[in-house]
């Protein structure tokens, strides 16, 4: 196995790495997200068919993509955890699950807000929408399983199994617009085909996606560090003593 993989498979090595990456990811993510929203909401032209309501795309599409990417990452860590019985993999799964659920919810929420002015309804039992709703329920199911089982190791394994089973839903989401006659529009951007979006629209979308991607990466790493602290506190001594304490420090005795 490559050395860099085994080096960071240990929680003690992962913690400092995460600590170094989080500020970069968070800062860069915020900057890109703000830039993307400025381009998308101010500079990008109005859509000739949907008017201004299309601008929901700048938050809906990144949330939808990242909800799927997060689930894919959860399934990856679940498989690694089950095969190699690596603690860090299960911790990554726990760190990803709340963000995946939040992104799936935001995808549904912003989709409903886009659906009302475009289709005339908040919700329709369309193949794409129903599959994303199922993704949200899968995320909630994984979170619930992990929280409901007192034995953390068993909770980890149960959540990992459900994450792997739910993987079958991802191709359904992706290809639902091709497999079924759905109300949801097809992909505007896909590999191997020229995008159907105008330049500034595409730029805003890519900036928002990159910004949200980095923000989610920072959030997941921050959550991973919390989990590392909580679990290390339960198992053994903390990974490292915090450099700064927020509790009042005793005043040093004067020399006299």
């Amino acid at each position, binding site marked *: 196995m490559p050395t860099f993989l085994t080096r960071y498979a240990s929680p003690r090595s992962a913690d400092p790495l995460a600590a170094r990456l989080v500020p970069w990811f968070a800062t860069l993510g915020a900057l890109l997200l703000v830039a993307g929203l400025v381009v998308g909401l101010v500079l990008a032209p109005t859509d000739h068919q949907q*008017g*201004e309501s299309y601008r929901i795309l700048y938050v809906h599409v990144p949330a939808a993509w990242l909800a799927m990417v997060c689930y894919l990452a959860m399934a990856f860590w679940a498989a690694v955890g089950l095969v190699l019985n690596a603690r860090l993999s299960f911790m990554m799964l726990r760190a990803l699950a709340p963000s995946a659920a939040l992104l799936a919810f935001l995808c549904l929420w912003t989709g409903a807000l886009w659906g009302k002015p475009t289709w005339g309804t908040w919700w329709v039992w369309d193949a794409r929408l129903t599959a994303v709703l199922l993704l949200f329920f899968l995320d909630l199911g994984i979170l619930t399983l992990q929280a409901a089982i007192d034995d953390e190791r068993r909770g980890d394994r149960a959540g990992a199994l459900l994450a792997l089973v739910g993987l079958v839903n991802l191709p359904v989401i992706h290809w639902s617009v091709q497999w079924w006659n759905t109300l949801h529009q097809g992909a505007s951007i896909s590999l191997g085909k020229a995008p159907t979006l105008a330049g500034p629209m595409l730029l805003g979308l890519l900036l928002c996606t990159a910004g949200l991607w980095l923000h989610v990466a920072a959030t997941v790493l921050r959550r991973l560090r*919390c989990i590392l602290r909580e679990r*290390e506190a339960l198992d053994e001594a903390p990974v490292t003593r915090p450099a700064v304490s927020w509790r009042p420090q005793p005043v040093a005795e004067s020399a006299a």
Partner: protein
Amino acid sequence: MNLEFLSDWLAMGGHGRYVWGAVLAVLLALGIESALLTRRRRRALRDAVDALDAEAGA
């Protein structure tokens, strides 16, 4: 900035409540998630320090 332009921009061609509802919901959710994580991290650090102190005191 021209006030009329600002008002038109906020109205988003009559779809302002949908567009801003979506954008603000996402930003609010990300902000709340970050705040909850900060609180969780502080609690985890406090527990870690307590564990160290208890160990040192024992």
